[in-house]
């Protein structure tokens, strides 16, 4: 029997213990099996209300959370910045308090400010799930990434993972880093020095600026999106130069292990972070990540709403 999940919220992977991480992964495995059945729906969250508060735009995460909640039979409402009073200057606190007054049991929040999910969690009875807060964390992305690695390689411990790209602005990098380190992977961060400050080495990962020197050792290469919408202008001369030094092209791929896993949190810029052929190739698990995201988010919704862990302990 699994121990009961104790947390009201899921705010970051940095704060989770190894057992909690395993509990989510094991629970997700059960939900993935359910998603393979002809009838893909369970009644676990029947009568509960999930609100997706996406103050910052998102496509796949929002749809993934919506579908996950629907598969669990919850009532789901989604709103974004333009359809909420935030646009009229309402504070985050007031918006959330109003959602709670409407008896939302779980609030899934995507917000451009780091710490926004924690801010809500401290002020609400409702469960809060962080769907990405600024450059802080994106815990369900980190979970679906380790789930995918576990599924494909059968383990996390000892696996050599390269996380490549715009680390400084990436919440995906941070959530991956914490989950992978806790589960025993060996993590190297690779990217241009302007997007990968040295102090990341104080977080427990190795920091390096030479992708070519790392290719042969890597079991997993996770290629992060170069975020055009953030302030990268002063940090990169051009996308072309980035791609030349840090893009995974066919030449570089030849030097990788044959069984290497190629990951990308999306949306992919084909030809920038990864060659188009590789994104569609046999070693790419980019679409597995998306599918697994659904199972992982079902697991998280289920656990924060009081469900006991499922699957093997």
């Amino acid at each position: 029997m699994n121990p009961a999940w104790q947390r009201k919220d899921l705010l970051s992977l940095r704060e989770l213990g190894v057992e909690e991480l395993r509990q989510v992964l094991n629970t997700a495995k059960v939900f993935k099996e359910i998603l393979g059945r002809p009838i893909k729906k369970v009644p676990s969250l029947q009568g509960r209300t999930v609100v997706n508060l996406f103050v910052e735009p998102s496509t796949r995460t929002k749809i993934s959370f919506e579908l996950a909640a629907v598969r669990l039979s919850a009532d789901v409402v989604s709103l974004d910045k333009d359809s909420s009073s935030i646009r009229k200057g309402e504070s985050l606190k007031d918006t959330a308090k109003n959602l709670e007054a409407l008896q939302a049991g779980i609030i899934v929040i995507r917000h451009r400010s780091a710490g926004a999910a924690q801010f809500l969690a401290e002020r609400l009875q409702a469960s809060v799930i962080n769907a990405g807060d600024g450059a802080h964390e994106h815990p369900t992305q980190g979970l679906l990434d380790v789930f995918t690695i576990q599924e494909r390689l059968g383990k996390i411990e000892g696996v050599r993972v390269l996380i490549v790209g715009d680390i400084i602005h990436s919440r995906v990098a941070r959530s991956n880093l914490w989950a992978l380190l806790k589960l025993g992977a060996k993590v190297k961060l690779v990217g241009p020095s302007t997007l990968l400050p040295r102090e990341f080495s104080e977080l427990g990962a190795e920091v390096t600026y030479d992708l070519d020197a790392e290719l042969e050792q890597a079991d997993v290469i996770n290629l992060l999106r170069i975020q055009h919408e953030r302030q990268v202008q002063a940090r990169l001369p051009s996308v072309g130069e980035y791609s030349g030094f840090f893009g995974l092209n066919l030449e570089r791929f030849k030097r990788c292990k044959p069984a290497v896993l190629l990951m990308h949190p999306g949306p992919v810029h084909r030809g920038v972070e990864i060659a188009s052929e590789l994104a569609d190739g046999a070693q790419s698990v980019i679409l597995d990540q998306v599918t697994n995201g659904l199972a992982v988010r079902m697991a998280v919704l289920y656990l924060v709403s009081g469900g006991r862990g499922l699957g093997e302990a």
Partner: protein
Amino acid sequence: MKEILLQGARVIDPGSGRDQKQDILIRDGKIASGKASADALVVKVDGCVVTPGLIDPHVHLREPGQSAKETIATGTAAAVAGGFTSVIAMPNTSPTADGPNTIAWIRQRARETGVANVFTTGAISVGQKGEALAPFGALKQAGVVGLTDDGHCIQSAELMRRALEYARMFDLPVLDHCEDSSLSAGGVMNEGKWSRILGLPGWPGIAEEVIVARNALLAELTGARVLCQHISSAASVRILREARARGVPIEGEASPHHMTLTDDRIEGYNTDFKMNPPLRTRSDVEAILQGVADGTLRFLATDHAPHCSYEKEVEFDQAPFGVVGLETALGIYLTELVHSGLVPLGEVVAKMTSVPSNYFRLERGTLETGAVADVTVIDLERKWTVKKSEFKSKSHNTPFEGRELRGRAVFTIVGGIVRHDLDGRAGAP
């Protein structure tokens, strides 16, 4: 006005070099000599230290224009509760104090509603926009004791040079908030390990240091007096130390929070730890303490910056910068500088009295006969716990809530009038 006799005190008056047992007599708002009259108010202060009224050279009273945060009445009430009899008010009010009208308004308002002395500063640039010089001459005539765009740093080195040249003519010090905004742009906390963990944009020490270095060079060039406000980084302390060793007329402030707290305290995204410049690392804290101890940083300043709770209760990157300090500063200084053994008591008292008084020409900061009777009585050993619910300030944005401190002002006299009496020594009014 009744005479007041402070009886049984240890008097520390750095201006006259005194540290001795002595009674202090106050008559007609001045320090007096001779015998107290029979009906004098006798206040027993055995076991306490009596100092000249403490001076805080860096506070935001928010009036005019932002009286939801603080007013001159509440800000000066907070000051006297913390042992301060004089504060120097920053000019980032609304409207900006960049001309004689606003200065005159503030001074009149302070006379009408203040319970401590309010000295004013004028802006360096019109509207604190960093573009055109404010009228220093008119500001001086209106009574300012210094010039500053605090909260904004003059980005143009050319404008700063002209400001220093012009200020020197009027013998006014220039107080600079040292921040190269191209290097700090968007930053809300110290750039380092913790900003990386928390995903918050960094405001690196280098953004302060390049301006401190610039100011040192410009102070040397122009001969003007420059005070670098709220120094936060170790390298800034080093630059100041080197410049001062060469005789450059440049000074630095140390704030209670920068000498005690580090950036890991932001882990919970608590906006009461958000101020500008931000909290940095242990090595920066140690450098600031060392700078205070060796005389590099001669000024102790709270940067008292009140904000309403609803303004602070927002996402971390959206919250305003600033913390209150007037009611906790003395306890922090005594605990962290004096009781720790780092700085002798007399030196800390000097940094809070004679040093700022002389620098800003305040004609305060001494207990010599005939001086204005601004007096602070301090119980060095009083242990207390910071409770923001007890603050006199309108705002409660302190990073020191719950902190145990040793040493507190128990009695404050401003111009011969008792303004703070923690233990009821003066009896019923």
